[in-house]
C-alpha cells in the first residue's frame, strides 16, 4: 500500500541493480535529505547542533568506516578510536604546517595517514583470525594513544599536550575553531558524510565489496576460488581506516575544538563498535540508526527528569543512563541480532505487502 512496488517494471539487469530499484526508497531518501539540509537548519538551536546532530553524523561516519572492515570484510577491530586519533592528529599537523590549505582538503588528506597506519596494523590479519585478530587492533589502540601522548611533535610541543583547532575559513565563512557557527559546521559535516556515504554504498555494491563479503563468509573458500586474500583484507583495512580517519578529523575539527590523547581511548572504540553492531553489521543505513540510538538517545534521556521536574540528581541520571543503554544493547541484540537495519528491512517488507499478510 504505502510501499507498493506493483507497476515498477524492470526490463534490464542494469535496472535491477540500480541504487534504488524501488521508487519509494528514493522518495524516502529525498525526504530525509530535505529534512537534514533544510528543515534542521531552519529549526535547530546550538544545543541541538552540538549535542545531537553533529555528533550523530560524525559517529555514524566512524561506524560506517568500521562497518566496512568488520561488517563487510569480517575483520574485528577494537582500535577505531586510535585510528580516529591518527586522522585528527594528521589533520592538525597539516593545518598548522600549511595554514593556507583548505580545511576540506586537509581532512581528506588526513584520511590517507590513518589508512596507512590501518594497513600496517592490518598486516597481521593475514595470519591471525577472529578474536585473536582483535589483539592486533588493541595493540594499535593502546600503542597509538601512548604515542599521541609522548611524541611532542604531534601536538607542536604544546605545554598542555593537547591540540587546539585554529579558526579556519572556507569561502569566507569560518568553519572550524571557536568562531565558527554551529550551523556552518553542521553543513560541512553533513556534506562530507553524504559524499563518503555515497562512495561507500557504491564500493560495497561493486566488485571490491563482493570480494570482501566472500572473504568475510569464508576466507579459505574465497582464496580457493581465486580471490587474493592479501589484497582483499588490506584494501578493507585501507578504505575502513580512511573513513575512520576522516571521521576523527571531523570529530576534533568540526565538533570538539580541542583534544587530548585520552579522547581517543578504548571507550571511543567500543562506542563506535556498539553503533556498528546495534545498527547492523554489513549495512550502511544501520550506522545512522545505531548512532541515533547510542549517541542521541542518552542526551534525550538526560533531559527527561528535568522535563517532568523529577528530583533526581544529575549524577543519578548518568548512572541510570548507563544502565538503560546497557539494557537496550542486550534487548536489541535479542530482538534482532542483525541490527536495526534488518529491523527496518523487515518493516519495509511488511509495508510492501500491507494490508495482505503474505
Amino acid at each position, binding site marked *: 500500500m504505502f510501499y507498493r512496488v506493483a507497476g515498477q517494471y524492470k526490463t534490464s539487469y542494469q535496472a535491477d541493480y540500480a541504487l534504488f530499484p524501488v521508487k519509494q526508497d528514493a522518495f524516502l531518501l529525498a525526504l530525509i535529505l530535505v529534512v537534514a539540509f533544510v528543515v534542521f537548519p531552519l529549526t535547530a538551536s546550538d544545543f541541538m547542533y552540538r549535542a545531537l546532530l553533529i555528533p550523530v553524523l560524525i559517529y555514524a561516519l566512524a561506524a560506517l568506516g568500521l562497518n566496512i572492515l568488520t561488517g563487510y570484510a569480517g575483520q574485528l577491530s577494537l582500535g577505531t578510536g586510535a585510528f580516529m586519533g591518527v586522522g585528527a592528529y594528521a589533520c592538525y599537523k597539516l593545518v598548522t604546517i600549511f595554514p593556507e590549505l583548505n580545511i576540506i582538503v586537509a581532512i581528506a588528506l588526513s584520511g590517507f595517514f590513518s589508512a596507512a597506519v590501518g594497513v600496517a596494523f592490518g598486516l597481521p590479519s593475514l595470519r591471525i583470525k577472529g578474536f585473536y585478530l582483535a589483539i592486533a587492533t588493541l595493540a594499535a589502540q593502546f600503542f597509538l594513544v601512548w604515542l599521541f601522548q609522548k611524541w611532542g611533535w604531534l601536538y607542536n610541543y604544546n605545554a598542555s599536550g593537547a591540540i587546539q583547532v585554529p579558526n579556519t575559513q572556507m569561502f569566507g565563512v569560518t568553519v572550524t575553531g571557536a568562531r565558527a557557527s554551529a550551523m556552518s559546521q553542521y553543513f560541512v559535516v553533513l556534506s562530507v558524510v553524504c559524499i563518503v556515504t555515497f562512495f561507500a554504498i557504491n564500493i560495497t555494491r561493486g566488485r571490491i565489496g563482493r570480494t570482501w563479503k566472500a572473504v568475510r563468509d569464508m576466507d579459505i573458500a574465497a582464496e580457493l576460488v581465486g580471490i587474493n586474500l592479501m589484497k582483499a583484507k588490506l584494501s578493507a583495512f585501507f578504505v575502513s581506516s580512511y573513513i575512520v580517519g576522516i571521521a576523527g578529523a571531523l570529530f576534533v575539527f568540526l565538533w570538539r*575544538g580541542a583534544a587530548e590523547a585520552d579522547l581517543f581511548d578504548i571507550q571511543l572504540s567500543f562506542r563506535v563498535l556498539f553503533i556498528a553492531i546495534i545498527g547492523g553489521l554489513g549495512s550502511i543505513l544501520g550506522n545512522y*540508526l545505531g548512532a541515533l540510538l547510542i549517541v542521541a538517545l542518552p542526551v534525550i534521556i538526560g533531559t527527561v527528569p528535568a522535563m517532568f521536574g523529577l528530583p533526581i*540528581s544529575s549524577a543519578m541520571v548518568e548512572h541510570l543512563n548507563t544502565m538503560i543503554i546497557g539494557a537496550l544493547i542486550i534487548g536489541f541484540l535479542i530482538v534482532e541480532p542483525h541490527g536495526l537495519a534488518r529491523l527496518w528491512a523487515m518493516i519495509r517488507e511488511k509495508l510492501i505487502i500491507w494490508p495482505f499478510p503474505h
Partner: protein
Amino acid sequence: MRMKHTTALVAGIVAAGIAAPALGQEVLKLPNMSYRTGPFAATGTPHMNGQLDYMTMLNERDGGIGGVRIAFEECETGYNTEKGVECYEKLKSEGALVTQPWSTGITLQVLPRTNVDEIPMYAPGYGFSAMQDGKTFKWAFNPPTSYWDGASMIMQGISDGNLDSLDGKKIAFLHLDHPYGKEPLPLLEAMAETHGFELLPIPVGLTEMQNQSAQWLQIRRERPDFVIMWGWGAMNAGAITEAVKTRYPMEQFVSVWWGAHEPDLNLVGEEAKGYRALSWNFVDSESKLMQDVKTHVVDAGKSQLNQQAGEFDTTAYQRGILMSVILAEAVEAAQEQAGTPMINQEQLRKGLENVNLDEARLAELGAEEMMAPFAMSCSNHTGHASAWMIEWDGTKFVKVSDLLTADRAVIDPLVETAAADYATANQPWQMNDDCAE
C-alpha cells in the same frame, strides 16, 4: 523507523526547550559542571558539595544574593569531555551567567569560546595559569592562585626560601599524564635551569592511577631529593600508599593543594606523618562561615555531604565553600556596579574583576583563618593569594609555614609568552584593550 527516531528527537528537543524557561527568570543561574561519578569523584565530590552548600546557605540565610535566589544547578560530566560539550551547550541555552568547567579537558574546549559566547569562565584553583592575563583572557578567571603560582610557592617551601640551595638536587615531578598534570612543567623547567636542580618528570597514566608500582620503583631507583605531586582523584591515594610502601621519606614528599585531602591520608594514618601539601585554604570548622553553613544547610539536612565520614571537617569540602564565597563576592560586586540585582554575563565579568577579599572582608565573612586575602583586577584575573605549607601529623593537617608568595619575576614573563602564543594560535583573538596596566 527513521521517521520515528527523528520525531522522538524533535519532541525531546522541543520539550527540553520548554522546560528550561519554566524554571523562572527570577534567579541567578550559576551552574556547575560537576562530577560525582568516575575515577575523579573521590576528590571531586567534596569540592562540589562545598560549592553547592555555600550557595544553599546564602539562599537559606539571606534569600540569595542581593535578594535574588541562586540556582546552582549541577550538570554531571563524569570528567568526560564529550558530556562537557553537551553540558556547556545546555547551560548556555538556559542562560547561564558563568561556566565552571571543573575539568582541564573541558576548559580546553570552552576557553576559546568564551570570547565568542561571552560567558565568564570561573576556574577557582585550576585552569590555565596564563589565564591570569586579563588582557588576553577577557572572560576567564582562575582565582585565588594559579598552578604556576603554586609550583613557585612549593619550590620556596621545600628550599626554605633559598632556591639556590636546590643546586645539584634531584626533584621528581609525579604528575597525572593529562593537560592538568603537565601544566606546571614549563615553570619547573625554567626554574631547574636557573637554580641548577635536576627535574625528573614522572607521568602517571589515567589507567595507572591506582597502581603506580612502576612509577614508585622508578622513584626508588632514582632516589630524588624531593617528590612533588600533581595528582587528582584516585591518583593521590595511590601515590601516598605507594610512598609508604617504598619507604620514601615523607618529609620530602610535597603535593599541590588537591593532595591535601584527609580521606587519602587516613588510609595510611601515622605512616604518612610529615607529608606536606601547599594549600591556599585551611580548615577552620569553628569559623563563623563554617558554622553558618552548618546551621543553615548541614544540620537542616539540605546537604549531600557524608557526615559520618567527617566530610565537613575536610580541607576539600571547606575549599569548595571558599570557591563559592569568591563567586558570591563577584556577584555582589557585579550587582553593586550594575545597580540591579539581576545581572547579566558582562556584568558578572566586571564583578569578577572587582572581587576584593581583603582582611576586613574576610573577617566580616568569618573566614580570616581560612584563606589569605587577595584582589582581582581587569588585568589580573588570578589574584595571586598566598598559601601555606600544611603538614599531616598523623590525624590532621597543621600549618607549618607562614604565608608563601609566588615569585612574580619568574612567572609573569612566562604568562606573557603563553598568553601571546594562545592568542596567535586562536586568531582572530579579541584582546581586552580597555585594561589599564
